[in-house]
């Protein structure tokens, strides 16, 4: 019973829980329900991945309407892999959320906060699960609208302007996507991804299809904050409540990367995108993004903002991987998708633990905290090493595959850019390490204590995951390779 409706349950559970959580009385009830739901989602997502690996692609017809007329949830290795990332990050950020949210959000708004969080989770999972392009747009808007609301709950008033800016740019991106979907619907009369894959080749020469492709790529690029469309991201991640920053940084942009891969390779096809300048655009923007965003990160005076710029740089790596247009490049993108979620999650959690103690994320206020909060700092340091790509950490694996993909294409300049990006990461991470560890604590802050266990434990789980996935690449690399193989043979 559960098994046959598994794919739908993953989306429906948070959907049903969201209004319930909203009307619960303030207190720890809303948090507890959200926690249970997110762990159930993680269990289901793990189960789903296991089923996909062992029994092949799952096709679920919503309401019993046969695809391509009805909405189909089509789960293959790629969906299942990304769904697991989203569910895992949600499940791990909730134990962390309890204290962090109590500190940052006024008590009467806490139920609404968790309700919006569940809606965001549902939207992201829905995007990943669905096999229907219009349904994807709807889920994209559900997750976006709830993330605007979540960001606006930040303590400073600048959270409001950051949310507004994101709302404007996000809506433009989503509307571009909607235009693109409308145009391909006009050409083919279908919205099902597999059906589109079968029908589009007949009309690939039409200019409408090329226009649709351009609209979709630009719209999704806005959502994934591809340089130079990243302007909404630094403010949004800086001023959002800590839990929201870490959840969005680890999942939202990753899901947008998934949408890009899905659109380019499943809906349109590899041969079609090879005929467009997509690869060149991704390579150029990726290269510029890695260098410029990492360079910007060095000069930030706010730890969260620094991490946000670093995120823009890391997303640019994923764009590079897509831009190589090879199986190896795409594998690198998917591996980095997973690994970046781990490292950025851990970094935002560690910084969040410091914010919990000193109430500020400005670099000057964090002086010397590394000595006062040794456990938080060590987790931060491990995740930082992973971000740089030191061998033995998860970050090394993804950088390794990216460089391999560059060398395979004899694209030496990109190999150099990838390494230069790592060096810039060394510089900006060192800047934080120096302030945290090598400067003496502020006079007014002599008695800062270590973060509470509820914040430390999730941070350490992610930090240790960074080490674990640096050695054991069975889940990451093997899943990514399976997903890439399957993308290469869709519908053929």
């Amino acid at each position, binding site marked *: 019973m559960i098994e046959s409706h598994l794919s739908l349950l993953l989306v429906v559970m948070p959907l049903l829980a969201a209004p319930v959580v909203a009307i619960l009385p303030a207190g720890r009830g809303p948090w507890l329900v959200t926690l249970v739901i997110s762990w159930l989602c993680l269990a289901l997502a793990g189960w789903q991945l296991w089923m996909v690996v062992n029994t092949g692609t799952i096709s679920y017809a919503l309401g019993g309407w046969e695809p391509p007329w009805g909405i189909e949830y089509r789960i293959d290795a790629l969906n299942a892999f990304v769904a697991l990332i989203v569910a895992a990050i949600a499940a791990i950020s909730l134990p962390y959320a309890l204290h962090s949210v109590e500190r940052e959000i006024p008590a009467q708004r806490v139920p609404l906060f968790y309700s919006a969080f569940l809606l965001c989770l549902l939207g992201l999972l829905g995007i990943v699960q669905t096999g229907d392009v219009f349904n994807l747009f709807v889920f994209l808007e559900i997750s976006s609208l709830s993330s605007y609301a979540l960001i606006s709950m930040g303590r400073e008033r600048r959270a409001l302007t950051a949310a507004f800016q994101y709302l404007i740019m996000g809506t*433009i991106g989503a509307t571009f996507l909607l235009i693109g979907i409308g145009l391909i619907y006009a050409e083919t009369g279908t919205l099902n991804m597999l059906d589109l894959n079968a029908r589009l080749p007949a009309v690939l020469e039409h200019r409408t299809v090329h226009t649709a492709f351009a609209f979709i790529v630009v719209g999704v690029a806005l959502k994934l904050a591809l340089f130079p469309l990243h302007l909404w991201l630094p403010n949004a991640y800086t001023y959002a409540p800590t839990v929201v920053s870490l959840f969005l940084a680890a999942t939202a942009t990753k899901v947008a990367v998934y949408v890009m891969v899905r659109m380019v390779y499943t809906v349109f096809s590899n041969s079609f995108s090879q005929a467009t300048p997509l690869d060149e655009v991704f390579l150029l923007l990726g290269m510029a993004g890695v260098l410029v965003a990492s360079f910007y990160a060095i000069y930030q005076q706010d730890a969260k903002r620094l991490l946000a710029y670093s995120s823009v740089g890391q997303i640019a790596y994923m764009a590079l991987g897509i831009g190589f247009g090879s199986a190896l490049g795409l594998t690198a993108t998917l591996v980095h998708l997973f690994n970046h979620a781990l490292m950025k999650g851990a970094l935002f959690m560690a910084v969040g633990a410091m914010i919990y103690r000193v109430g500020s994320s400005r670099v000057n206020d964090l002086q010397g905290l590394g000595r006062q909060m040794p456990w938080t700092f060590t987790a931060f340091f491990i995740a930082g090493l992973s971000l740089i790509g030191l061998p033995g950490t998860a970050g090394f694996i993804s950088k390794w595959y990216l460089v391999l993909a560059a060398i395979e294409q004899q694209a030496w300049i990109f190999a150099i850019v990838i390494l230069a990006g790592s060096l810039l990461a060394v510089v900006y991470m060192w800047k934080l390490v120096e302030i945290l560890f090598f400067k003496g604590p502020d006079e007014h802050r002599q008695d800062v204590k270590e973060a509470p266990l509820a914040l430390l434990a999730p941070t350490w789980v992610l930090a240790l995951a960074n080490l674990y996935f640096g050695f054991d690449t069975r889940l990451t690399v093997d899943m990514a390779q399976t997903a890439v193989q399957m993308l290469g043979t869709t519908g053929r």
Partner: protein
Amino acid sequence: MIEYLLGHYNYWIVILLMMAGFYTVVSQGNLIKKIAGLNIFQVSVFLLYISIGNVHGGTTPIIAEGFTRYSNPLPHVLILTAIVVGVATTALGLALVVRIKKAYGSIEEDDIHKQDSSL
């Protein structure tokens, strides 16, 4: 040529609205005007979908005797969903503007930037 221009008049309106809306979003500093521009931009896409759904000489898609040619109802249904999304976006945007007005005392982008950078 004239026939081509007139025959596609709905698409010209779509393009006009789309550009007007998009330009308003980009050029206006007033947050309410930005939301209005965003709305016009979205509405143009609704029109695009509805235009796509029209079948030449087709009637309303209700099965009845004597009619064999129907317009495609699916785009209408899709756009009904998109309208809901648009309404939600507008509501959220306006709610944010209200909060911004309370926090900053202004809804002009330049003013807000000035207040933020003077901190």
